């Protein structure tokens, strides 16, 4: 662990321990709080104005109408749809840019070895070379020539 770049008084281990405890406590407290909301008392449920919808929807179903026509929620859902579409287009653009960039980078690399049986296979699936033991990037795919 990197404690050499220590800028404060806490060590890495202590900071991790405190952060872990804070994380677990906050998570449990949040769930404890939301599960405690509402006691499912029928007295308190669905007391929507019984005249919602001009009196035709008196009583049963009035809460459905009120919930389905909440303008704020409608706006929120519409905005999220718009954000999804915008971000989707952007992510697709990023995908194609990277796909193209990877192909161009690959064209600069050396052609694959066509006779892997001569070189043997390393335990991680990479190809064994005559060079020194590989660094992680080499082990994961990039072999020195």
């Amino acid at each position: 662990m990197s404690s050499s770049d220590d800028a404060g008084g806490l060590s890495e281990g202590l900071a991790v321990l405190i952060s872990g405890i804070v994380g677990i406590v906050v998570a449990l407290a949040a769930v404890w709080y939301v599960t405690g909301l509402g006691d499912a008392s029928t007295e308190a449920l669905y007391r929507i104005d019984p005249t919602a919808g001009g009196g035709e929807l008196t009583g049963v179903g009035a809460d459905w109408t009120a919930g389905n026509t909440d303008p704020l929620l409608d706006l929120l859902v519409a905005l999220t749809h718009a954000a999804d579409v915008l971000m989707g287009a952007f992510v697709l653009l990023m995908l194609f840019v990277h796909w193209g960039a990877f192909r161009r980078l690959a064209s600069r690399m050396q052609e694959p070895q066509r006779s892997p049986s001569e070189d043997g296979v390393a335990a991680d699936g990479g190809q064994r070379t005559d060079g020194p033991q590989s660094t992680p990037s080499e082990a994961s795919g990039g072999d020195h020539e």
Partner: protein
Amino acid sequence: MTSLDHGKFTRVTTYFHTLLALDVFLLFFTGYSVMFNDELWWMVEFMGGNASVLAIHRLAGLALIALTVFWVTLMLIGPGRRKNFRAAMPSPADTEAFIQDVQFVLGRADERHPNARQFAGYESDEVPLLSYIGKGVLWIFTVELVLLMVSGLLIWNKVGLSEFYQSKAVVMGFVTFHGLLGVIMLMGVMFHIFEHGFHPAFYPVELKAFVAKDAMPDHEDADSDADHEGTGIERLSLRPSWGLASNLMGGAVAIGIVSVLLASIFDEGYPVPRELAVGGGPANLLLTVGVNIGVFVLLVGLVLSTYGNVLRSRYESQREREEVTAADGGEPVDDD
């Protein structure tokens, strides 16, 4: 040459990344098998039915809150962590990096910008802690995670929420909002898997997020780096399967992104319909195939995340063996 392409993250960061990835995959598999039930009904059955899937989703949600709060706290109190905030701030160079990336693809630039470079090689010193994509992922995921956790907590106890709003339909609206929010992250994660699994120099997985900087050897050859021009990527050989695998995966990611985007519109769920709505609209069959391809991309990501940890473990074992051998007075040798 390539050692400095890794080792930018601390050990805690690499473990956190793995745990967060596992948790997010679990949340996607459970959450979207419910939201896109028309297309992913088999996943719900596979995971034990609705009650089981939602129980797992809640447990994973609890873990997500714990992980996120842990991380934010660590960033605030951890030694040397606050400078990371500066490193994560967007800068004009990030815009330049994006523009140069587009130019690079079009053949109008010879190199990727340092703020875009994943493989740095001899030019590692120029590469910042986070690329422009890395910064984007960090900030978008931060906003997304906060909104998802808040909306997730709101719909955790639907009775409580419906009592507050006096309407079941509003509760369904919040469920829809929660699911639609996650779509951005879902698409981003698919791209993230492609970006870090299918770079030709790192394929099948980039180890930056798995091998910690304290596990890296000291870079003693800095002077020789100055003797080389460019990153040195031309010295690496391509894996035989890269061409096919990257094209298949690129296609799968594109199909997956488009499909989940369309499915999120078809399978929205709000306003709550008067009648039972079965099917995903006219593109039903194609959509089903597409969404399932998207889920396959996530599965590949899960496998690659696990593989990254396997490689890290093997690499650390190898380093230990080398140190033991060298301590004997002999040269580290390749005795496999």
